[in-house]
């Protein structure tokens, strides 16, 4: 009888521990400092503010945040990422996220900032986030197209700039190449323009743009470690899977769709917003030379483009009061993908089989004990 009592107490304690630890969100009361900080993430920020913010993230979290300059823009500005993760003696797997490859999509850098803040805010108390920070490093580029982003802040007439700021060549007087058509992934084949004045100008050749080259270089160096690649855009509320060419399928298309649909479901659970999932040629338009396609081509298995809010009402000029809800839902979507990626790598198929065997064995033991 005493054994039974002890066993029950143990069970109760165990179930409590399991419930509270696994992915639970803490509902702490905000301190005054934190509230001001929270208001920061409901506004758009120019490049110098974002640069200062990156420094602040490093200063406030020196044991988990470092930065890396991994390239230069046309106008010779640094392209910087934040590397976030618990330090380790062994080489770690990685998640890549970049925002702001298209200058006018301001909600994207806002999301990168939100994402960083969120994992830094929760990794000490949320066991799942903590586990992922332990096993993975997050490589996050808040603004990839720095020149374009700065240009879009110049005045109201430049707000809708999309491309890089490199000058046209061969007598063409317009500026800029579409960075998301400039990667070495079926470059120049479909959904591009060869007119340098066009918004989808793919450049004089693949990787003509130093920004695209910087990403290519980093991904190339890290490609055996990167488990998932997320590139953040707006607008249209879509989750796009490779490839942009209508005649080419990713070998793990089924997996990509399954994970993407899971992410869309997680997004909808937050504020009811519908995000459509599919390849770009299916749900949007055919295109080539995208960073997402390049990532998949070099072997990164899970590669997604997020197109955030809205569906055309405000378009690129999403009101600041929608920054928070947009970031909350996108965070849920991104976390779904990252959790899947993490668990697939660290809780392998073999372990699942072992667990099944264990359970079967014990079930047999229990039933035999009852029968005796």
């Amino acid at each position, binding site marked *: 009888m005493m054994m039974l009592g002890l066993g029950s107490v143990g069970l109760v304690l165990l179930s409590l521990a399991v419930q509270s630890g696994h992915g639970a969100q803490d509902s702490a009361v905000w301190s005054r400092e934190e509230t001001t900080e929270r208001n920061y993430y409901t506004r*758009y920020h120019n490049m110098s503010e974002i640069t200062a913010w990156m420094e602040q993230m490093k200063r406030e979290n020196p044991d988990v945040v470092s930065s890396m300059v991994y390239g230069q823009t046309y106008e010779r500005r640094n392209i910087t990422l934040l590397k976030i993760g618990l330090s380790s003696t062994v080489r770690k797997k990685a998640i890549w996220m970049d925002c702001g490859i298209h200058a006018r999509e301001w909600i994207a850098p806002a999301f990168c900032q939100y994402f960083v803040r969120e994992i830094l805010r929760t990794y000490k108390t949320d066991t799942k986030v903590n586990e992922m920070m332990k096993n993975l490093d997050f490589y996050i580029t808040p603004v990839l197209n720095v020149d374009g982003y700065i240009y879009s802040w110049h005045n109201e007439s430049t707000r809708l700039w999309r491309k890089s700021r490199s000058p046209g060549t061969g007598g063409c007087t317009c500026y800029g190449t579409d960075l998301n058509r400039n990667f070495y992934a079926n470059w120049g084949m479909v959904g591009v323009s060869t007119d340098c004045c066009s918004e989808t100008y793919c450049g004089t050749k693949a990787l003509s743009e130093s920004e695209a080259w910087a990403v290519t270089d980093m991904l190339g160096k890290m490609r055996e470690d990167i488990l998932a690649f997320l590139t953040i855009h707006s607008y249209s509320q879509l989750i796009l899977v490779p490839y942009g*060419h209508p005649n080419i399928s990713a070998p793990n298309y*089924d997996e990509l769709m399954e994970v993407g649909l899971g992410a869309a479901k997680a997004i909808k659970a937050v504020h009811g917003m519908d995000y459509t999932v599919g390849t770009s040629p299916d749900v949007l338009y055919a295109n080539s030379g995208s960073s997402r396609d390049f990532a998949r081509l070099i*072997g990164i298995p899970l590669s997604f483009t997020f197109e955030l809010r809205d569906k055309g009402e*405000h378009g*690129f*000029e999403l009101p600041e009061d929608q920054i928070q809800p947009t970031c909350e839902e996108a965070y849920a979507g991104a976390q779904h993908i990252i959790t899947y990626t993490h668990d*697939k790598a660290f809780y392998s198929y073999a372990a699942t089989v072992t*667990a099944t065997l264990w359970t079967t064995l014990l079930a047999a033991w229990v039933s035999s004990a009852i029968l005796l």
Partner: protein
Amino acid sequence: MDGLLFSDLTVWSMDWTLLILLVVPTVVHGNPTVTVRTGSGPPVGSNQHPNSVPLSEDTQTTTEVREVVVEEVMMTGMLNPSHYPARRAATVVQHYLNTRYGSPYRWIFLSKVHSGSAEDVAEMRKYQLELTMQEIISNVSGQCSAELLFPGGEGQSAPQVQASCEGLLQSNTTAQEEAFYQQHRASNNMVSGNDIPDSYGHMEPNMKPFWHLGGVASSFIMLRESNESTLYNMAQVANFTQLETEKDQLRVNYHVLLHEMISQEIIHWKLLVTWSPEQGVQVLQTELQPKCHNCEAPPNTTN
């Protein structure tokens, strides 16, 4: 004695079994929804050359400036509601509905495509769609059935749309429209504004009806310019200027920026718009603005 020992043992083993059963799954858990497939990805470190895909027969390498498009195979039969052909056609229906029913207090957007089909009819492309549309000021939604005809050939004529909706126009906008009309019809204080919304997505409350009106007026252009390879939204009212009221119609000059999704272009248009609660929105003139400074402006289009 033996019996007592035996039952103790049973209970003890059950306790531990239950404990282990609880512990093991929580410590070692795979994602239950994942089915592992053999050979589900390319070998890591694959040496496949990124460009080693068969060149589509449709692409030609010439030195002239052109849009590179793989010739789109036009979907026929039942359409996937989440794929682009149905959504582009549905957006055309959205533009049509705004030209018919839009006002400073009524602006309609596509909410969901339920089903659709497409077929070739003579030289034309005919779509049938079941949609949910939403009036975004009152948040009222309604079900719509629509039929569209995209003209074939090289002609640039507008698509023809027929649509009937249930419940979409429920909201009573009469009072607001009347108040807005009375407020602005007198000629002593002409309103104007610019950058609506501004870079931060913000606009003053008194600018909102002019934003809606600009969007509705833009729908006339977007409807006219639409085909199966376009998807239009109004990106911004660059500026508007109210002119003298004429024949009881409010008159406003607009400069709008349209975003065409497939080309990603921002297209500038100027429009002359009239409105009254009775007559609705009318667009008297439209003028495409040049993209670059030293380009020639195309001729006016008078409707």
